[in-house]
């Protein structure tokens, strides 16, 4: 999975990656998730993805 235009990583472990976007929060849930590459505005994720959540608005 490739995700672009994220602002920052909030949390990362092998079951969850939570990214803060410019208009909300995007969370990927899965198993054995590994970041293949991390650049300024692009993240490439590998693993078994279970579900994704998008929350409008940025929580502190």
């Amino acid at each position, binding site marked *: 999975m490739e995700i672009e235009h994220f602002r920052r990583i909030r949390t*990362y472990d092998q079951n969850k990656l939570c990214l803060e976007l410019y208009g909300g929060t995007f969370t990927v849930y899965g198993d054995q998730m590994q970041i293949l590459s*991390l650049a300024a505005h692009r993240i490439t994720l590998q693993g078994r993805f279970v579900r994704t959540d998008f929350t409008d608005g940025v929580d502190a």
Partner: protein
Amino acid sequence: MEVVQLWAGVSFTARNGNTEELLNDAARTGIYLSKIQPLPGGFSGRCAAWRYRRLAALARRNRVRLQVQRRRGLFFCLRPLLRRTGLWVGLALFVPLLLWSRNLVWAVDYGELTAGQQARAAAVLREETGLEPGTVVSQDLLTAGEYALLKSGEFSWASLNFFGGRLEVEAAPAKQVPAIFSGKLQTLHAKTGGLVTEVNLKSGTALVVPGQQVEKDQPLIGTSRTERDGTPIFAPAAGVVMAQFTWDTACDQPLADQAPLLTGKTHTRLRLSIGRLHCTLPGLDGGLVGPTPNDVEITRHLQLELFGLPLPVAVDETTRYQRRIREVTYSEDGALAMARFKCLEQLAEAWPDAEIVAQQETVDRQAHSLHYAVTYTLLDNIVQD
């Protein structure tokens, strides 16, 4: 695998502290991370070795403990070598040495010359001018080499070109000079009597015809003839008159004779040549002590090569074979063969170009010698020079 990891890459672990913020800082500052795997309390990943210092600074700011797990790539394989002074000194010496050695002959290309011509050309260049693998080349030396090749008589044209350690020898083998016609102003006579088989007239008047029997000193080709109206015409005499004739010779071959024979004792001298430097190596003693008048000396030139590349090292091996005058006892067959050989030598001296049509041998065996007489029937040009 990324190309960076092949050259210089680092695998690291990041634990404790705010590891997510470290990832964000790395992404923000352009430090490219890869293979990021979550670990209890942090993550592991890879980055280029030259980015690691910057990453470590970011880690300190985020109170993350960064630890190098493994260094990867060619750079880290070579790094121990780069710290060795001897290699740098060797490199510093090697480059000027390599540039200087471009003036030495490293390879010789003889083009389309045959193996024999190559060997003779190499010997001429070596002995006359000292031009051989390992020699420092100058334009004068090349010119001298060209003259030496021409002077040897084997080549009618020669050119030596040298570039980047490679000596190119181009030469055209000399062809036999075409015979320049020169007739004689006198009548040509027969060297010996015989039966004329062929008349090949170049100039003058043929005085014999094929099938005619001629005697010694008989005129064969004349210089003048008379036209029908009686006008004398002069033309120089030249041509070939082939005739079949007989020629006798005999030889007495003793059954026991004194001849120089090899004793098996030798003495070898070795001379090592490196460019223009020569040094004599200890000789190989084969039991021969002092020189005697009948000894035979043979010199062999050995050019050392490495995978076909001539090294600037050559060895001249001069071997002296001892010969002593001793009595040789021939069997009858051996004595006959020796007698035949001696008669053929006499024939080659008297009639070098003659073709043997037939031969009749007479062998008389005596107590201590063998008398051999032979009559050759020959075919040759009988015109006197």
